[in-house]
Structure formats: C-alpha cells, structure tokens
C-alpha cells in the first residue's frame, strides 16, 4: 500500500512515515506543505492520505476540497488540533473519511489508517480470504491450506495488494504505483520477479492456482481455475 503524509512538521511527518513503514509495511511519501501535498496526491496514486490541516501554501481543508472536487476518492484521514464539534462536522462533511486530534496515539493512528484502507478497498475484516489462502493484516502473515507461508516484506505487500483487488486485473503499472514510493526508480521487471516468487511460494504444489497472468493486461488473483 502507498500512503501519502502531508504534514508541515518535518519531525512528526518522519515519525509517522517510520511508524507506518515499520508497522504496516506500507510505502510512504511525505509532503511538507499544502501545495506539494495536493500536487503529489493528484499526480500519484495512493491508497490513503494522512492530511494535517494547518499547512503552509494551501491549507489542509483546501487540499481536501480540491481533491474531492477533482473526483479523487482516495481515503483521507485528517490530523487536526481542533476538536470542537463544528470543525469536526465541517471536516467530515467536506470529504474527510476520518480524523484524529493531536496529540494522537501512534497505535490508534495506524489502526485507523489500516481500517481506512481496507474500507477503501471494500474489505471489512482484517483477514483476507481467497480460496484457502488467508492473509492476516495485523500479523502480516499468509497461510495457504492452514500452513504459514514465509514471505519477505515486499512479497507480502504485493500479495496483499493482489488480494485486496481480488478478482480484478491489476496492471504492472498499478502495482508499481501502489508498492513503491516516489523516489523509487520504477522498473516493471521488479514486479515480474516478485510475482514469480509469490507463485512459487503460494501456488506451487497446490491443486488450485490463485495467481494468474493475463498477457498484455496484468495479473489477477482469483479462485476457480485448476492447475
């Protein structure tokens, strides 16, 4: 998952990024002002945006309003020092999906972020099930047929994304967008390597194949096709 953090306090932004990376294995980009934040959010593809309200350049409220005006449906979690009810109502009404007052508990922020992303993908429970493949968000582990599958962080991320979009064809570009941050050089070969590794670990010696390649279009994770 690819998350954007828009927060002008550099130290806080860094802490958030580190926490998200360590805990959820997501990939994080940081913007230190509203203009950059809006820019990155519009140009890039993110699974969630953490947005501070008091930003230089463009205020958080403006960023949110503009994103929604452009039809961007990325889930947004707003961080704010204002706790009065009318501000909160205004926030949620203008398109925020969740909010947290500062100072916040890091654990709570991570939990809400993950829930936000799951909801954004239409996924309610912390467990993803496709066939006999079970993915647990909280423990970041995968089990096939009851047996744990050892995955590297990157492999997990890839599998997680595919499972979130289960049944849908996911292009290499899309995978690149969601699995790598802004700074990473995007070579699509990398994706192929991970897919093949995943296949080896998950589909090999199994009666049912889950990861499928559709030439020219991308990959899809679904049941229903025997090996």
């Amino acid at each position, binding site marked *: 998952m690819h998350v954007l953090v828009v927060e002008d*306090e550099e130290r*806080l932004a860094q802490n958030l990024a580190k926490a998200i990376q360590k805990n959820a294995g997501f990939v994080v980009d940081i913007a230190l002002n509203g203009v950059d934040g809006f820019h990155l959010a519009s140009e890039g593809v993110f699974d969630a945006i953490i947005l501070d309200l008091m930003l230089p350049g463009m205020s958080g409220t403006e960023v949110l309003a503009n994103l929604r005006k452009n039809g961007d449906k990325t889930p947004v979690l707003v961080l704010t020092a204002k706790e009065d009810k009318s501000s909160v109502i205004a926030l949620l009404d203008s398109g925020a999906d969740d909010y947290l007052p500062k*100072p916040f508990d890091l654990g709570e922020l991570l939990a809400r972020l993950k829930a936000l992303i799951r909801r954004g993908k239409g996924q309610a429970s912390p467990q993803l099930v496709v066939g006999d493949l079970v993915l647990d968000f909280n423990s970041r582990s995968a089990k096939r047929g009851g047996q744990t599958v050892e995955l590297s962080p990157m492999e997990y991320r890839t599998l997680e994304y595919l499972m979130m979009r289960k049944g849908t064809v996911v292009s290499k570009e899309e995978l690149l967008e969601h699995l790598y941050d802004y700074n990473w050089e995007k070579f699509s070969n990398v994706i192929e390597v991970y897919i093949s590794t995943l296949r080896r670990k998950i589909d090999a010696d199994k009666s049912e194949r889950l990861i499928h390649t559709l030439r020219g279009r991308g990959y899809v994770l679904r049941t229903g096709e025997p090996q």
Partner: protein
Amino acid sequence: MISSIRGRVIVLALLAQFFATSCAVGVAIWYVRRAIWASVDSELQARAVSLLALVGQDDNNPYALDFDAAQMNVPLEDLYYIADPRGPVLRGSSKWVPDAKNAAANRQSTWNFDYGGIAYRAKALINAPILDQEDMKVPQLRVNLFYAMPVAETESRVKQAARDAVLIGLMALAVSAVLTWWAVGKGMAPLMELAGRADKIEATRAEFELPPGTLRSAELMPLGRALQSLAARVRAAFDRERQFLSDAAHELKTTVAIQKSTLQLLEQGKASEEEYREGIARALEDTARTEKLVADMLLLSAIEHAQQASDGSMRSCSLAESLELAIDRLQPLAKMKSVQVLLTRRGAPRVIGRESELSLLWTNLLENSIQHSPIDSNVIVEMADVDNANCSVRITDSGNGIPAEDLPHVFERFYRSDSSRSRTTGGFGLGLSIAKAVVDGLGGTIRIDSTLQKGTIVEVMLRKAS
C-alpha cells in the same frame, strides 16, 4: 464611630429632629405659660377692680373713703388690702400688708410672693381713682388697692402643660425615628441593589446591566457606569487570555504530538541500541522545543500582565547601554554566520522601562535580523534622538525580506510567514509578538518595512525619560 452610612444618616437625622422637637416643645411651653399667667392676671385684675368698685365716698365726709363691706364677694383664699394713700387703712384681709413702696418702685403692678406658706400673685392699683364719685365738688378721691390670689394651682397647671408638651415631643421623636429608620433603609435600597448586582459580575457574562433603582438615582449612576466599565475591562482581559490560550493550543498540541510520536515509535517493536540512542536524542530535541515554546508563551503573558500591574520596577535606562548589551549577547550567533552588527549613536537618550524588557526587545529583534541575514553581511543598528520627546532605534538587515502579504500580520502571535516556515530553525512566531508587547508597555511604536530580496527594516520609537 458608627461605620455604617445608614447608621450615620439616621443618627444625624435624629439629632436634627431632636433639635427641632426641643425648639418646638420649648416654644410651646413658653407660650402656654404666658397664656396661663395672662389669664390669671386678667382674673386678678377683674377681682381687684370689682373690689375697687366697693370703695366709695363717705356719706358724711366727702373727703373720706368708705367701704361697702356688705357687697363684698371676695373668695376666702384671696388676700386684699385697701388703703387711703393719705394714710389710714380702710380694710385688709388677714394680716397681709403689702410692701406698697416696693410695688410702686417696681413699676410692675403684679408680682408673686409667698405668705404663710402659700404662693400668691398680687395686683396693685396705686392711686386708683374710685369709681362712681358722687360728689364731684371735691377733688378725685384715690385709693391704694392690693389684691392677691393663690397661684399654686396655676403653677401646677403650668408644670403639667410642660410635662405634656415634653411627652408629646418625645413620642413624636420616637415615631419619627422609626420612620427615619425605615425611610433611610428604603433610600439605601438602590445602593444595596447595585451592590448585589455587582457581586454577580463574572468574566464570562455579557453586559453588566444597571438595575432600575440605579437608573433612577443621580448619585448612583456614576458608580453604576464605573462598574460597567470595570466589568467590560474584566471581560476584555478574560477574552484576551482565552484567545491567547486558543492560539497557543495548536502550537502546544503539535509540539506534544511530535514528542509523543517520537517516543511511541521507539516503543514499537524492537530497535537496535543505536536506534534507541538516536530516538532518545530526538525526543530530547523535541522536549527542548516544547520548553522554548512554553517559556516564550509565559514570557509574553508575563509582559502583558506586568504592564497592567505597573509596579515600581520601571526606571530610567540608557538606550545605548541596553542595545550594546543585546548586541554583545548575540555575538556568538553573529559570528557563526559571519554577520557584523554595527551600532551608530546619535545622542544619549534615556527611556523609562525595565532593563530586562529592553534587553529582551533588542535581543529578539536582533536575533531575527541576524537569523535572516545572509552569511557575511551586515546588520545596522541606528539609535537617535528624534525630537525633545522621542527617540528611535532602527535595525536594518539585508536578508530575504518579508512578503508584502505577511507584513500586516508579523506581530500576531504564532504567525509565521509561509516562506519562513522552517520550524526547526525558526521559532514559534512569538518573537515579534513579545517585542511588540514590550514596546506597547513602554508607550512606544514599532513598525516593519521590508522588500523581498533586499532586506528588512525594523523601526522602534520610544518616549524619552523627561
């Protein structure tokens, strides 16, 4: 002394009433006395004259006096003495012999005396012509007639009247005292009403409304208005505090959020000793920032309060000295950036203020200028007398300048222009607010002019110590 106004007013009113009542009672008693004695005298006169009527000419001797005792109708208790002025006594009751010479000499024809233990009042008709002289061939016959009536009863009547008057006076006084008490109490009611309303003044309540009793009272209106303006000031101070806290809330919450996240990050999962060390170092940096924020906020609040307190710590300070002190203090920072601070002096003005505040003012302004100056540049400080009453300090730097849209806001609390948003190097936007608070407290003015890419000029005008 009585400490209650009501008590004092009542006592004064009662004293006045007592005085008035005493006068009235006195006059009444005197008047009654006179009236009673006047009536006694007229009775005395009447009896004397009726006795005189019985003195006539002797039938045998027209030169002699005769007394018709048969028609005498004198009350037993009265005394009389009739004598021919030529000598012989005609008649007298008991053994009373009035002192004729004395009476004549006294010129008063009535007098009081005691005889045989009884008080009498006597009337003398000296050389009174007899009434009805038949034989007019002889000269008018005259007689000395003395008549006395006992007056013990009269005296007791007078005493009784006096007693009655005094009693009535006292009763009237008592009633009026009660009425006065009640009236004064009622009169004080608007004051108590105002006091009660004032007691309920709260910083959060809106307008202080004057109660109806006060509105109707010319004496209480000034007090009422004074209370209104006092309440307004209290409210304003409270609002200022609230505003300050609300401004500060965001900053404080953010600083705390940073600290919290740094530490919680460390808490999560396992980290190497190196990571822990680094994390703790960062947490300490965060703490230092919070410390500075809190200190700045308290400083700002203290300055604003000190101005209202106006204690005796204001004294005459040398402007040049305070500037030199600040410049000296900032040498390390200036050296780091190879910035030269040049001070030019014109005159030697003195200002009334607190040295600590002046030092703070220059330090804040200079620090700002040095921070924004490029490396190896100059900051110019010019101090001068402006006229007889004022002096000025101008600080010029050649930094990046402040954008025009930010200039009106630079003195606002926690305001930072977007371009100088680097919170890590910059402060919290309180430096200039503190400077302005100090200048305001000294009764001066401060303004900032700036051109982008050229530099900034800060000009402070202060009142000279006279």
